[in-house]
């Protein structure tokens, strides 16, 4: 988040001048033109390369810092859920724990086990890191903040996410350890299988928006919940859950954390790693929470769209209002994403783990057929609402009401649980 703040401060000054920067190229181009430098001059090319490198630096660091902060956040949240205190020594509420851990891991010896395939062993964490960092290129943060709004955004995201599996397989196989091998084979089977329902589920918003670009899909939605794709029709609602489940499985998160099932495989594919290389695996795991949640937020939950302000009017804004609303949209996007991240953590610290055959049957017997049927249903539904637009409104209204009902029931249940627990509840103490 703090890196996002750095990024925003960099681009805010230009946003005020150029009202609608859609890409870094346009942004840099605009800046150069403002200083009277033509696009054809070699200086311009140099400036462009420098700017892109700067953006890449920001994006990678943003990813790394987000992952680091999540490590602290997850440990604190898990601790509260388990009636523990969690790390609370380094800095306020233990916030700097992740920096202390990173420094410690950097200073640790980088052990390579005897009999390991040295080159592959060394390279495997970088495969993971690259696959993970590349996702941030096409992930939106706010109305204007996106490294590159690719025309094939969603497709690109699916492709680079799959890159992680290369790292997992390489690390498990090259470690020369049977436990690591178990973990990596499990992971490969799992990631490859769950990519199918994830892809099919993402096809639903792509169909609805008519574009693969992440910003384009967000623009096709609106700020209010009934304008989100998740409440568009029952198949879209199902697609959201299918995507969420598949993303959990792809990110090796509980209840699908078989590749690193510590009670079975000790630590899974990263058993033999230590020091910095080890930390890469965890960086990727925690960072992936942001990636999967941000993608779900973008394509199903309306992204950065502000209620009551449609995207075209947002584009037209200039000056202070543009900067202010940009920050609000960034905050809203972060809020939605963090809510999903919290749900992921919550699931992890609540649910037991599935067995590998149950994992596969869940994917192939339930998620894959349902996601295919859902995509077909959405295609049909789009034809139906084109003929009778009133049905669209009714359906969105009904599903939003259903969502509101579920939330209300959940809140009531929580309150009644809190009453039952009585004086054993301690939210404020022991921070």
């Amino acid at each position, binding site marked *: 988040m703090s890196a996002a703040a750095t990024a925003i401060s960099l681009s805010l000054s230009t946003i005020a001048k150029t009202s609608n920067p859609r890409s870094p190229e346009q942004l840099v181009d605009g800046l150069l033109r403002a200083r009277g430098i033509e696009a054809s001059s070699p200086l311009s090319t140099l400036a462009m390369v420098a700017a892109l490198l700067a953006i890449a630096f920001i994006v990678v660091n943003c990813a790394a810092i987000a992952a680091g902060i999540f490590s602290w956040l997850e440990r604190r949240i*898990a601790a509260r*859920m*388990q*009636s*523990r205190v969690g790390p609370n020594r380094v800095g306020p509420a233990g916030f700097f724990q992740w920096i202390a851990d990173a420094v410690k891991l950097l200073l640790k010896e980088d052990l390579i086990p005897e009999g390991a395939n040295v080159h592959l062993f060394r390279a495997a964490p970088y495969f993971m890191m690259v696959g993970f960092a590349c996702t941030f290129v096409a992930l939106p943060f706010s109305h204007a903040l996106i490294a590159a709004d690719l025309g094939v955004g969603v497709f690109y995201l699916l492709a680079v996410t799959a890159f992680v599996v290369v790292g997992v397989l390489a690390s498990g196989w090259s470690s020369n350890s*049977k*436990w690591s091998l*178990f973990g990596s*084979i*499990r992971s490969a089977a799992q990631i490859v299988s769950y990519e199918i329902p994830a892809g099919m589920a993402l096809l639903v918003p792509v169909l609805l928006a008519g574009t693969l670009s992440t910003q384009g899909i967000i623009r096709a939605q609106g700020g209010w919940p009934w304008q989100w794709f998740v409440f568009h029709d029952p198949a879209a609602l199902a697609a959201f859950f299918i995507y969420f489940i598949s993303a959990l499985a792809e990110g090796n998160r*509980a*209840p699908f*954390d*078989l590749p690193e*099932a*510590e*009670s*079975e495989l*000790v630590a899974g594919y990263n058993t033999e790693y230590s020091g910095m290389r080890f930390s890469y695996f965890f960086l990727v795991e925690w960072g992936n929470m942001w990636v999967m949640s941000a993608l779900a937020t973008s394509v199903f939950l309306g992204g950065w769209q502000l209620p009551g302000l449609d995207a075209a009017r947002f584009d037209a804004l200039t000056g202070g209002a543009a900067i202010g609303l940009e920050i609000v949209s960034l905050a809203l996007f972060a809020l939605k994403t963090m809510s999903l991240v919290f749900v992921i953590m919550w699931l992890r*610290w*609540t*649910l*037991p*783990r*599935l*067995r*590998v*055959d*149950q994992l596969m049957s869940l994917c192939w017997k339930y998620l894959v057929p349902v996601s295919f049927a859902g995509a077909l249903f959405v295609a049909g539904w789009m034809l139906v609402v084109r003929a009778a637009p009133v049905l669209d409104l009714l359906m969105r209204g009904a599903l939003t009401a259903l969502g509101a009902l579920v939330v209300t029931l959940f809140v009531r249940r929580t309150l009644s649980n809190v009453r039952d627990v009585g004086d*054993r509840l301690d939210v404020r103490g022991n921070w």
Partner: protein
Amino acid sequence: MSAPGTDPSATMTSGKEVLKRIEYSGEMLVNMGPQHPSTHGVINFLVQTDGEEMTRAIPEVGYLHRSIEKIGERCEYAGFMPYTDRVDYIAAMFANQGWAMACERLFAIEVPKRAEYCRVIACELNRIASHLISVGTMAMDVGAVTPFPYALREREFINDLLEELCGARLTYNYLRIGGVAFDLPDGYSERVLRFVDHFEKVLVEFDRLITQNRIFVERLRGLGVISRALAIDHCLVGPNLRASGVDWDLRRDLPYSAYPDFEFAVPVGTGAVGKTGDAWDRFWVRTREMQESCRIVRQALQKLPEGPVMAKVPRRLKAPEGTDAFSRIESARGDMQYYVVAGPGEMAHRLKIRTGSFNAMGIIEKLSRGIMLADLVALIASLDVVAPEIDR
């Protein structure tokens, strides 16, 4: 190795032979342990596996052997009491009681009524603590991390209570030959009752969190089914036996100590979610036994008689050489037996301790055929084996 007329692979136990056999089979031999998070102590499992599916798992015990029985033959009867704590350090109170009862029978000592009640209270609290570890680690082995700290949190309260009673939180050394070391402290009943009231509510929460959890039930239903006959054949005891549908509890069927004074149910596995005697039944039986232990503790505190907590015990304990005594108690892990033969001096000539975990290890090889690697972990956990109790 193999007895005539039996399948040679059924009785094979040596790792070297297994290695020889699987050399050309394309299968893999993995050592699960002795240092592995899910073996519950220092146990090794030779896992013969074809990918995720196991052909078998062969338990190798003996890593935690400390010759406790031999120590018992080299130290005085009363002096052996602290060593019994180490027989099963998760439920040390029972190991204390088995030894105390065996010696009391050897020397014909009558234990005062109040001491028996103190023993029951301490033992039942210890049973809850032991079962909490069992169900907590079992949930963790199936991948649910959170029930474990919850269980340990409750166990800490019990540790506090037992510490108040005898000064120790793990190896209690609370019982003495002829009674108990200390009487209940002032206001102890109220504190125990407060805990029991609180704990019964927590059990309901625990059931909602994990016992009835869909994924948890799916993982454990029909896993490692031990039929009634198989359980009896393998001499399983305690919750493992009862989960297989055998209604047998020493506290009720061969009553000892003050147990005849109390009313309690003996939970028996019914196959509520799968087959009788599956891993879920074993888990469920333990959660219900904690409830029953709460009932017993309540009754014991209510009926607690006045009087001394130590019998008149001679300073030098000595029995005629060759006389023997035998005691059986229902420990947290089932039927625990002490057999002691008096020696010429103030030491035993022979001591034998029979524990439940050792027999439970014997059934693992049979149950492990054709199950998944992840199931082996759940299976070991469901049998609630404790490494020191296996090896002693």
